[in-house]
């Protein structure tokens, strides 16, 4: 039997053109992102033997890009933990030896987020001006007006978190201004204008206590990360970024209104699993890239990954620790609130760029260990990356 436990590395990263309601097809955006990642790695399509994707279909992407035959392919149901699900699957596939070099792709368009839009669901069940019925999981939520993610995910978690721990809207506001400061140093960010605390506090509520500026910014984006073995990565264009540990956790089905624990949810068991697989400790981490689909999720990750205690993320942020120059620079690309909803992929890609020393005016000097995470609520995923030390 062949040894089936290989060291995994990131060989290349890339984005498509990213923006609001782009005129390109899904296929074109996928082509752009994969081409960028291959170029980053110094690879060609013939080097790829695996594809994992969240958005689109893995075999169709393989056919589209002339990558057949594939030794491994995975298509997310798109209701899993966004990019992290695909990334964890892809890392696991390369580690197992079932394939040697695989793409992890997240394709997301501005409307719908991979699920049918509410308008589309309404069209399926009847006209809005008469009796219409909603079945399945939605029958427990939709009749009460809880179908918006800012309500059933962001709102329920943020309210519970603020009520349980006394974290304030001002502390969330400071977090938003720091992330915007980072975005100003990132030419790829979509929102780069300076943001003040007063502007945050004046921004409208989407679903109280969630403000517009607590939400990630919807956009069209395809992101691609190429995972390969450490051995292969060392012969490529860029210095390898090694995957030290990876983890995922699920705590419920998709009805995030009925979680047993709204502030620990899937983030706690995912964090615990991640640290159980490495000798590194939170104090070893130089940069953090933590999902902020809603800003409360970023606070949950800070706490459960062990960078501060439960309920202490607000103070941690206020003390300036998450700023560039602080003890734990956080979301140095600006986070999804500013670079757009790339659904987790930007955190992995920015971590890799920091560890390669490619982050330009937002580079954290000497960064050797980075953590990235994605999702919250029903499911979550995370990975710890290092330089090739």
């Amino acid at each position, binding site marked *: 039997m062949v040894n089936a436990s290989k060291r995994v590395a990131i060989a290349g990263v890339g984005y498509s053109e990213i923006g609001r309601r782009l005129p390109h097809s899904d296929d074109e955006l996928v082509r752009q992102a994969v081409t960028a990642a291959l170029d980053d790695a110094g690879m060609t399509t013939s080097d790829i033997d695996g594809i994992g994707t969240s958005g689109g279909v893995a075999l169709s992407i393989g056919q589209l890009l002339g990558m057949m035959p594939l030794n491994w392919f995975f298509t997310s149901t798109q209701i899993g933990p966004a990019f992290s699900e695909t990334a964890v699957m892809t890392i696991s596939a390369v580690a197992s030896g079932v394939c040697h070099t695989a793409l992890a792709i997240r394709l997301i368009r501005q409307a719908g987020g991979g699920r049918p839009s509410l308008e589309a669901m309404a069209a399926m069940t009847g006209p809005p001006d008469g009796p219409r*019925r909603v079945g399945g999981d939605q029958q427990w939520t939709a009749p009460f007006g809880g179908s918006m993610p*800012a309500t059933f995910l962001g709102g329920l978690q943020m309210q519970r978190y603020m009520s349980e721990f006394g974290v304030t809207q001002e502390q969330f506001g400071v977090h938003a201004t720091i992330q915007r400061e980072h975005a100003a140093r990132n030419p790829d960010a979509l929102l780069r204008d300076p943001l003040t605390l007063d502007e945050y506090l004046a921004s409208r509520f989407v679903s109280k206590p969630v403000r517009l500026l607590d939400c990630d910014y919807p956009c069209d984006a395809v992101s691609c990360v190429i995972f390969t073995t450490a051995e292969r990565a060392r012969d490529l264009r860029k210095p390898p970024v090694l995957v030290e540990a990876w983890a995922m956790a699920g705590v419920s089905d998709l009805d995030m209104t009925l979680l047993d624990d709204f502030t620990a949810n899937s983030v706690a068991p995912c964090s615990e699993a991640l640290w159980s697989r490495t000798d590194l400790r939170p104090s070893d981490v130089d940069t953090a890239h933590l999902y902020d689909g809603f800003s409360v999720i970023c606070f949950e990750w800070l706490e459960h990954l062990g960078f501060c205690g439960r309920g202490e993320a607000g103070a941690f942020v206020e003390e300036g620790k998450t700023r560039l120059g602080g003890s734990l620079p956080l979301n140095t690309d600006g986070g999804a609130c500013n670079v757009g909803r790339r659904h987790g992929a930007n955190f992995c890609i920015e971590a890799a760029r920091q560890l390669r020393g490619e982050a330009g005016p937002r580079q954290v000097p000497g960064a050797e260990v980075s953590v990235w995470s994605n999702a919250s609520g029903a499911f979550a995923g995370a990975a710890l990356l290092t330089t090739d030390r």
Partner: protein
Amino acid sequence: MDEPSADVNEHVLYPPMPAPDELSAFFWDGIARHELLVMRCTSCGWLLHPPKGSCPRCLSTSLAVTDLSGRASLVTWSQPMQSHEPYFQARVPFVFATVNLVEQEPLRFATNLVDCDEDALRIDLPLVVTFRDVAPGCTLPLFRPA
């Protein structure tokens, strides 16, 4: 986030109404009679919501319907300020909430809070079910402060 349509149709009376299925029909039939019912595992006593075909604790398929007191406590809540649904857009802000029914921890239930001040909302606020006819042929189990 897209802006909701400005021309809300004030004639709309209907929220998205539940479409009962084989598993959930007993629940919605009970609501129509102003009874709050859930499944109870006859093997281990676990209470299930939403209804399933088997008990997640012991995997028994021996399930019976049981009546609840309707008393609950507040777990968390959010106040939508916009909605794609004309029914709800005409009612913003309203309170969408997760409550826990007192018979078991956890026994979570999604609902709306009514007859309460925003300032009074807090974790563990005691609540009681109230059955409201929100549209012709549509009764929903909402909760109000006990």
